[in-house]
């Protein structure tokens, strides 16, 4: 539990060193004030975090087919729905580790297929991992050891905003001389170059579609081949190639969720570049992603099953299929007959579908009009304690409870549904 300091006559409580669950960075230096259930970030944290913490608590009742119901009735209705379902899909998966454990246990119980809200983005990294492997690094290594950071098509102005302050241009680093001479490049649309003060990124402007081409051009240059580029663009890429050649520890940052449908190609190309650099110098990659508990969801699934989600419990054995077990495809193909949707960090609505559904999470406009069951749940790290894994896949952080608003955790609700499955 974070330290709690009661200010003199102020009824609010200040929580220090709070880990923020609203993006994969899990910045844990937030100071959050709590006043009668209302939260506000008073120090550190990005604009996104400030908005998310400040969301008012909506007193929401469980709903069954749009009508208020008791929690018990709603849980029974959710269990009945799952029992009736011949092929449930668990989507969203926006929950903490305990929620993911509970969801996977329930999925096993009812033979569900499981995917995450950001399943496709997460799958980009996984596909590269499974076909060629990865050389990666973590946030503290970037902060302390990098003398070159290249943002490859990565826009960190909204999501991952604090990466700039905490890692790119921190106030101090173990290898001070590397921080002092650190160069930051951005490869992508100029408007997406980092705007955080002090970052001073050298921009190599190109469209999103051209990012992959420019990475391949970099590789060609390293292999003493002249890429088919001209003028300023050739100059810019050559400049970056020179910076890479001069660097001692180069870090390449990508954001799988921003790379489009074939994002794994960009990651694969960057990994080939990193592998080439590592023959003589040191370089590593870093994926910024894993929002909405995504990194935790695939990690938890991996230890419990061996597979990083997009898997099915329907058969006698587990089946992993990143092509077929994708929420949008399954719904489009009519391959499932019910949907259980969990989204407790953000009010992401469930995909539009006529299937019976159970939604666990933050109140959304859709909840009152849907066919099925709505179960309000708390947000981990605000309404109840929890744990999440950071985007680098190494550091897991504890999430505190900052207020008492009597919203159950997704894990609790999922366990209760499982108990009612009979």
């Amino acid at each position: 539990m974070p330290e709690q300091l009661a200010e003199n006559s102020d009824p609010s409580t200040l929580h220090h060193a709070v880990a923020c669950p609203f993006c994969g960075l899990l910045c844990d230096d937030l100071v959050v004030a709590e006043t009668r259930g209302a939260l506000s970030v008073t120090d550190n944290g990005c604009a996104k975090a400030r908005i998310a913490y400040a969301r008012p608590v909506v007193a929401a009742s469980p709903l069954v087919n749009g009508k208020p119901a008791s929690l018990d009735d709603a849980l029974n209705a959710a269990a009945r729905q799952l029992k009736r379902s011949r092929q449930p899909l668990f989507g969203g998966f926006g929950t903490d580790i305990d929620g993911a454990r509970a969801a996977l246990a329930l999925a096993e119980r009812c033979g569900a297929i499981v995917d995450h809200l950001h399943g496709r983005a997460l799958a980009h990294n996984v596909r590269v991992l499974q076909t060629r492997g990865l050389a990666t690094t973590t946030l503290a290594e970037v902060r302390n050891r990098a003398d070159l950071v290249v943002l490859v098509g990565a826009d960190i102005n909204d999501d991952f905003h604090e990466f700039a302050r905490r890692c790119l241009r921190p106030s101090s680093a173990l290898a001070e001389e590397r921080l002092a001479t650190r160069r930051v490049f951005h490869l992508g649309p100029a408007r997406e170059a980092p705007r955080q003060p002090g970052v001073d990124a050298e921009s190599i402007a190109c469209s999103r579609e051209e990012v992959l081409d420019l990475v391949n051009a970099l590789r060609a240059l390293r292999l003493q081949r002249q890429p088919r580029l001209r003028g300023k663009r050739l100059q810019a890429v050559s400049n970056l190639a020179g910076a890479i050649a001069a660097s001692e520890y180069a870090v390449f940052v990508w954001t799988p969720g921003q790379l489009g449908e074939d994002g794994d190609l960009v990651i694969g190309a960057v990994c080939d570049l990193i592998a080439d650099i590592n023959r003589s110098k040191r370089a590593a990659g870093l994926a910024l992603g894993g929002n909405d508990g995504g990194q935790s969801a695939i990690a938890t699934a991996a230890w419990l099953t061996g597979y990083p989600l997009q898997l099915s419990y329907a058969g006698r054995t587990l089946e992993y299929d990143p092509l077929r077990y994708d929420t949008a495809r399954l719904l489009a193909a009519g391959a499932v007959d019910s949907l259980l949707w969990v989204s407790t960090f953000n009010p992401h609505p469930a995909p539009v579908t006529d299937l019976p559904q159970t939604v666990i999470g933050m109140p959304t406009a859709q909840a009152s009009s849907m066919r099925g069951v709505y179960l309000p749940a708390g947000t981990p790290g605000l309404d109840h304690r929890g744990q999440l894994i950071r985007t680098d896949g190494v550091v897991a952080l504890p999430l505190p409870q900052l207020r008492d608003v009597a919203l159950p955790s997704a894990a609790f609700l999922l366990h209760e549904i499982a108990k009612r499955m009979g």
Partner: protein
Amino acid sequence: MAGRSITELRGGRVYDPAHGIDGVVQSIYLCDGQVVGAPSDPSDIKVSHDLSGCIVMAGGIDIHTHIGGGKVNLARMMLPEDHRQDLVARGRHPRMGSGHAAPSTLTVGYRYAEMGYTACFEPAMLAANARQAHLEMGDTPIVDKGAYVLLGNDDLMLRMLAGKEPGVKVRDYIAWTLRAAQAMAIKVVNPGGINAFKFNQRKLDLDEQNAYYGITPRQVLLALADGIRELGLPHPLHIHGCNLGVPGNLDTTLATIAALDGLPAHLTHVQFHSYGTEGDRKFSSGAAAVAEAVNRSPNISMDVGQILFGQTVTESGDSMRQYAGSAFGSPKKSVLMDIECDAGCGVVPFKYKDKNFVNALQWAIGLELFLLVSDPWRLFLTTDHPNGAPFTTYPHLIRLLMDRSFRNDMLKTINPDAAAASTLASIEREYTLYEIAIMTRAGPARSLGLGNLGHLGVGARGDVAVYVDHPDRERMFTTPRFVFKAGEMIVRDGRVIASPTGATHVMRVDYDTSIERTLDAYFERYMTVSRRNLAVADGEIDGDGRGSLIAHGARRSS
């Protein structure tokens, strides 16, 4: 004492080396989760199992097995093709899962139990990754678990040594790390070498300086081994030495033993550190020299890290050596990670082939070590799961050790040049059941300071494995007749019938908490998490009825 409910394990042949019991036919009594003495009132015996023809041992303890943490989980995610060959069907275990080289946590727990193992220790937990390691171990059913936390490649330790901080500060840091990571012991991997690799050094010999900090592996080893002795930790520094897998590294291993100069230490997966450079292929067995050094160094214990042929995956904190090894991996994909100014890791799938000279000789070197090290109390049975082979190969390995003719038959099938280069054929030793019980039960328990585990004396926890005596020891150890965990029958005829939650063992030693202020400043200034959030709270392991903690204390100084 009326109303006691005692389970009698009647008339089995008992091997309990902690009490010098070597195959004596006697009964064991279990009550309230513990081993108790023979009841004075026979009516207290509520359940009795006739174990005539059976072998009875304490539950097995694996002192070195990679079962939880980031690198294990990366291996799982990376290898769907491996899982697909070994999926656990619904109903086979309490929960579904997948097995082979990087099994799911659920499958790990069930399969260890099904071999009669009741405790497993993860040897390479990173402080930065401790929370996840405990979460994974928490989802590993039945077995007790614990982990060794890595030190010696973290920039903080190297800065402390470079800054000539007093030993007491290093000790406080060690003790704090144990507590924060909820660890059972301290391990060092390629001392200082993982850190050096981040500064682009590709090898770091025992007396070679880290290019940035100017510290040598020898300094790291001695600082840690000395600090651990001063703190009184039962398990000494767990050492994965320099130059893993490098031909000629036997010299490094001998120099490491000499450098320790009597300081207690455990050398792990020594097979990978016992290579010479003789012969046409410049690769030879150093097992005899290493075994001899271990035999005359009572301060040293070791485990083998036996390789067995087939597909597996190597998972190691030794990013420097794993990077070098990735060129030989199969299938060709690997993970390399620099981690959080704390450590690193590398994951490289590997296929050991019996017709390959190097692999075949590695197999022989491991067996030579087993057979040439004389004291089983200082030698533990491991394959460094999954690095040498998955833990499910243990029964096969036991047969290789216990059955010379079987061993020699296998020797005939490997690469003939490797077979010819090994002294294995000439070694007559066959392990006894008593020695196996030492290596897999009593020895690890004593080394780790586990108190009531690893033996069957009164007061021991009721973790008992019962095997049907069969001349084919592989068959015997594959399918126990019964396994009891804390007095409860959990396996019958090699199948899990109950799935209790095992405890997490941790080591607690006092330290001067003023070190926390130093650490707060360091974390604030350089790290990306706060010191307090890095630390794993007890409640994260034992809260919500998810698990339980067993805290052990320092060895009392004599």
